């Protein structure tokens, strides 16, 4: 497929955003495929296995709704910066270098972690289902993804996403019912009920909400806003198709990931114990136990599709950041050379793959990685969103708000300090404010500032009696909420008295294409014929 669309002379803008005019079918497929990564499948099943019947909902539903909640922000971002390549590039024009570097740096970190995570998932699967070793598996996965993405970049990423989403979604349609009936069908719920604790058997489990759902609600909003892979698709899709694209991706992601989480629920009812005590083995184990050779191949392709689609998006995101925010920025006064930009993008892909391969040997817990990355971006959510709507937000407010939020987040999330006494209550108060910020931001995109303020305050009032004295016991949740609240308080406090009023039209004026207009139409013919 990559050869099919490749051109001898690729275009730097096409390499990053495919000319900002992708249609609904490709963009919806790409958004869905990118959002579903191997970790989503594994983590949703883990959630089902750990928290019971409500576990997959607390993983997949909130993740899906976050796609929906960010689309109004996406429309605003696109209206303000229609020709942008990265969100960091926009932040440079809006604020300056420190804001750009924070967004670009966090994306470099996030994408390398994501790449690593997907390589680990691929390597583990190959080691489990084939005679090849884990190391051989990660090498094969990394080389394959790099090869098809290297030449055409984002264009190859989105086109292959379509094939990958067809494979993934098609496999889900078949595999879930097959595993369910092979494991015993409806009768399993009767015979296996003894394997569940009361909390696991409760659809409204507070354990599942507090330990899985609530931290994830907070984390994925950050993940969606800060992530360049999502921003890149936002800048690539035709502007009038943003809404249907996001809605379709919401439904596609939610149903796929929750559906896959049902395998964890089935495993729990069936009394299956994860191999070597590692819950990441649960999914492959279920496949080996209940699927025949043909469906096992379908399963294998599905997992490879999920991890490849996200990994190629990460490579495309990393190359765009290197091309725009590092090389493009350094050469901004001398007109960056689009051909050198392409070289920078391709070298970045190779270096990123090598780095992720190096880290893949660490094999960190996938679920913890996801929460960590989401919470890291939590510090950036309010400053980024406010910067697109409020002309008073300053560079100092953006930078200080984000840095101090990170400083506050780390000791809370990783429990470096004792939460006894006053410290615990301070964390509770910040957490309650964080709830108000999250709810307020969600409402703001759809209903505007007035409704957002009312909803935010109401959320704080409702949550306060429950959270006071208790929230600090949930380190993952309170860490994310503290990041939201601290960045919001600092950013708002430093901006509200600012005399500066930014003109948003400046962004459109200063961000444009790197290439001159491309007169050569892209034909749907093989590259060799195009060269002729």
């Amino acid at each position, binding site marked *: 497929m990559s050869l099919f669309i490749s051109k001898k002379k690729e275009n730097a803008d096409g390499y990053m955003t495919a000319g900002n005019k992708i249609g609904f079918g490709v963009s919806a497929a790409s958004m869905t495929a990118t959002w579903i990564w191997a970790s989503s499948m594994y983590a949703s099943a883990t959630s089902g296995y750990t928290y019971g019947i409500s576990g997959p909902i607390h993983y997949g539903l909130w993740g899906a709704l976050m796609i929906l909640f960010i689309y109004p922000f996406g429309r605003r971002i696109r209206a303000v910066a229609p020709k942008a390549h990265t969100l960091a590039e926009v932040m440079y024009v809006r604020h300056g270098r420190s804001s750009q570097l924070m967004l670009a740096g966090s994306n470099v970190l996030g994408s390398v972690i994501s790449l690593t995570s997907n390589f680990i998932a691929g390597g583990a699967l190959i080691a489990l289902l084939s005679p090849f070793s884990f190391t051989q598996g990660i090498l094969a996965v990394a080389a394959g993804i790099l090869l098809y993405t290297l030449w055409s970049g984002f264009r190859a990423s989105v086109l292959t996403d379509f094939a990958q989403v067809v494979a993934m979604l098609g496999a889900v349609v078949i595999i*879930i019912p097959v595993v369910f009936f092979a494991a015993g069908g409806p009768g399993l719920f009767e015979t296996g009920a003894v394997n569940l604790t009361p909390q696991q058997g409760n*659809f409204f489990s507070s354990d599942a909400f507090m330990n899985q759902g609530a931290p994830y609600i907070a984390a994925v909003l950050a993940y969606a806003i800060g992530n360049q892979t999502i921003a890149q698709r936002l800048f690539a899709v035709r502007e009038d198709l943003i809404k249907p694209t996001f809605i379709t991706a919401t439904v596609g992601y939610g149903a796929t990931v929750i559906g896959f989480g049902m395998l964890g629920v089935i495993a729990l009812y069936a009394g299956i114990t994860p191999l070597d005590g590692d819950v990441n083995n649960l999914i492959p184990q279920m496949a080996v136990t209940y699927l025949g050779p043909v469906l096992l191949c379908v399963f294998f392709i599905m997992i490879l599709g999920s991890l490849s689609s996200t990994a190629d998006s990460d490579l495309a995101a990393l190359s765009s950041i290197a091309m725009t925010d590092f090389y493009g920025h350094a050469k901004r006064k001398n007109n960056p050379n689009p051909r050198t930009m392409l070289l920078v993008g391709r070298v970045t892909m190779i270096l990123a793959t090598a780095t992720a391969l190096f880290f893949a040997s660490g094999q960190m817990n996938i679920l913890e990685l996801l929460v960590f990355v989401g919470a890291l971006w939590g510090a950036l959510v309010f400053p980024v969103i406010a910067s697109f709507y409020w002309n008073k937000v300053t560079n100092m407010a953006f930078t200080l708000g984000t840095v101090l939020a990170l400083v506050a987040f780390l000791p809370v999330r990783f429990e470096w300090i004792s939460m006894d006494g006053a410290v615990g209550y301070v964390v509770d108060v910040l957490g309650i404010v964080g709830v108000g910020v999250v709810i307020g931001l969600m409402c703001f995109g759809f209903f505007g500032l007035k409704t957002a303020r009312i909803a935010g305050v109401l959320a704080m009032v409702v949550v306060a009696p429950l959270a006071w004295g208790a929230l600090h016991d949930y380190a993952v949740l309170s860490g994310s909420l503290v990041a939201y609240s601290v960045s919001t308080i600092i950013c708002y406090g430093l901006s509200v008295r600012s005399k500066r009023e930014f003109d948003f039209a400046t962004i459109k004026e200063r961000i444009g294409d790197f290439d001159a207009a491309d007169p050569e139409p892209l*034909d*749907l013919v093989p590259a060799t014929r195009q060269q002729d």
Partner: protein
Amino acid sequence: MSIFWLTVYVLIWPVIVGGTLVVIVRAFWKEWRQARSEGRGMI
């Protein structure tokens, strides 16, 4: 939750996924044919 509703709960997701897949494939097919008839690339 009764056994019936638990069964529905497990099996409803593949049905929704199937519907989404149909929407995406139909849109892709339509865009591909349109691009082809206009002599331009999809991407």
